């Protein structure tokens, strides 16, 4: 018996969300009184791999060959399912990331496993079954799902479980790929990552703005505030629909759901669809010139005022704070 965690990386580097997933999987391994095995695919340094022991992985399996440098849902499924079976895993944990969403469902079918995605808390054990809390209705609710597979797959949301260090010595083992030649029906032609931007789904801090900004020409105010905080930028649906900002910044029921520590909403009225996408944020700040804006009802802090005046002042105050702090 064991718990297997798939450790995702971007071009050879683990991100905070990966350490969250490992910490979460470690906590489950402790609940089940068993070992944690991590599995990494692709180009990674020995140092990166053994560092997973910091978060409690006793064993780190590493699979790499020339075909595995980029994500391939079918090949990665073959490798993960093979490892899960060999390690006798009863729980497999992944990030509910973009790649995780391509991988977890295939893996669940391959392993005939129960699957819960969008998981936000540790499971409770019900005999051999697990009960897990996951988001539902696009952030408007949570569902407690009972998984009764002999093996179950959990895909954990970003920012849902804290990173926790539990140093053990990790044994790194290189494995040959168990992918089949027929797995390689897709090929990655290009990867474009905006290196100067903070990834919105994983961001700790988010500055988001709506139609109250009046037009795309005023967005530099939002970008400057985000920069002063080290935050990602986001927007409301009307703003992305109008083409002021790209679709990937649209937060809400039909866009991205975020759960940062701090969500600052500027000039967004707070339609129910938008609130759904931000309800699991830890702290919400609303800046709006309309004191009746519904967003204030779900905010922790509010400022009634014109965004064009308040935002630059807030940026200046943030800069002063970070210089002194």
């Amino acid at each position, binding site marked *: 018996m064991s718990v297997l965690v798939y450790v995702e990386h971007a071009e050879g580097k683990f991100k905070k969300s990966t350490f969250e997933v490992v910490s979460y999987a470690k906590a489950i391994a402790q609940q089940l009184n068993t070992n944690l095995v991590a599995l990494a695919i692709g180009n990674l340094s020995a140092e990166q791999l053994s560092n997973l022991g910091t978060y409690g992985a006793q064993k780190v399996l590493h699979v790499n060959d020339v075909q595995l440098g980029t994500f391939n849902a079918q090949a990665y499924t073959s490798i993960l399912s093979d490892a899960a079976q060999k390690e006798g895993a009863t729980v497999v944990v992944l990030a509910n990331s973009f790649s995780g969403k391509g991988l977890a469902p295939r893996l669940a079918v391959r392993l005939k496993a129960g699957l819960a995605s969008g998981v936000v808390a540790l499971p409770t054990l019900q005999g051999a079954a697990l009960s897990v809390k996951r988001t539902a*209705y696009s952030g408007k609710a*949570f569902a407690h799902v009972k998984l009764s597979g002999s093996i179950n797959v959990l895909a954990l949301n970003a920012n849902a479980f804290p990173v926790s260090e539990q140093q053990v010595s990790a044994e790194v083992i290189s494995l040959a790929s168990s992918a089949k030649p027929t797995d390689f029906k897709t090929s990655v*032609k290009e990867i474009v*990552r905006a290196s100067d931007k903070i990834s919105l789904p994983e961001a700790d801090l988010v500055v988001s703005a709506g139609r109250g900004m009046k037009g795309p020409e005023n967005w530099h105010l939002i970008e400057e505030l985000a920069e002063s905080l080290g935050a990602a930028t986001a927007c409301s649906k009307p703003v992305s629909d109008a083409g002021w900002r790209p679709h990937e910044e649209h937060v809400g029921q039909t866009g991205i759901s975020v759960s940062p520590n701090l969500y600052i909403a500027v000039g967004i009225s707070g339609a129910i669809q938008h609130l759904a996408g931000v309800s699991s944020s830890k702290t919400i*700040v609303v800046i709006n010139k309309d004191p009746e804006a519904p967003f204030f009802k779900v905010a922790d*802090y*509010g400022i009634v005022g014109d965004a064009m005046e308040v935002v630059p002042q*807030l940026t200046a*105050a943030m800069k002063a*704070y970070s210089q002194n702090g």
Partner: protein
Amino acid sequence: MKILVCISNVPDTTTKITFNSDNTEFNASGVQFILNPYDEIALSKAIDLCEGGKGTITVIHVGEASTEPTIRKALAIGADDAVRIDAAPSDAYFVAYQIAAYAKDKNFDMILTGRESIDYNGAQVAAMLGEFLDLPSISIIKKLDLNGSKATLSREIEGGKEVVEVDGPFIASCAEGVAEWKIPNMRGIMSARTKPLEVLAAQSLETLSVVEKFETPTPRGAVKMVDAANVAQLVDLLHNEAKVI
């Protein structure tokens, strides 16, 4: 070209989500149900690809008879025919299994879904279909171009995009941006009434996940207002009280 688009029937995005008294079931009374917005985007993309008689579009839905208005909506937007698998969609595994059972001998060139349903948010059906049908699946795409049998897709990744090429049949789940929304016109609405809608029995299947109960998020405390003339106080509160910066 034959395209299959998978659609689900979900509460309208403006719905206030409530549950029955023991929190085991969604309270559907008075709720307007709609075609899942992401599935509508997938259907819109299929219509673009088939424009000028280049192909046919079948929509498939797993649901009970009460969901037929949503299927007719998809036909009004532009699907050629529809299939309804007559069963409550208990979980993604069940839904994907039913769709795969239907699609396995139909030689679709591509199967499109929405990136996720806005009620269950599993984002699971597309990749599960890929596994059941042993086809490549590309989840959460923002762009799809065809060149003969080759498709080039751009899928979302954290902080960027990945461009993927696939030759031959595939499955993809569609996000906003992949196509413009299509609004049904009067001719579409009229013809939707007479387009074929086949109802098929579901295959029986043991599912491994069941929702035991729901809960709604705990409400926040009262909002603390800060004077617009004193934004430094907000910075102080975020640091010392909320401890988020």
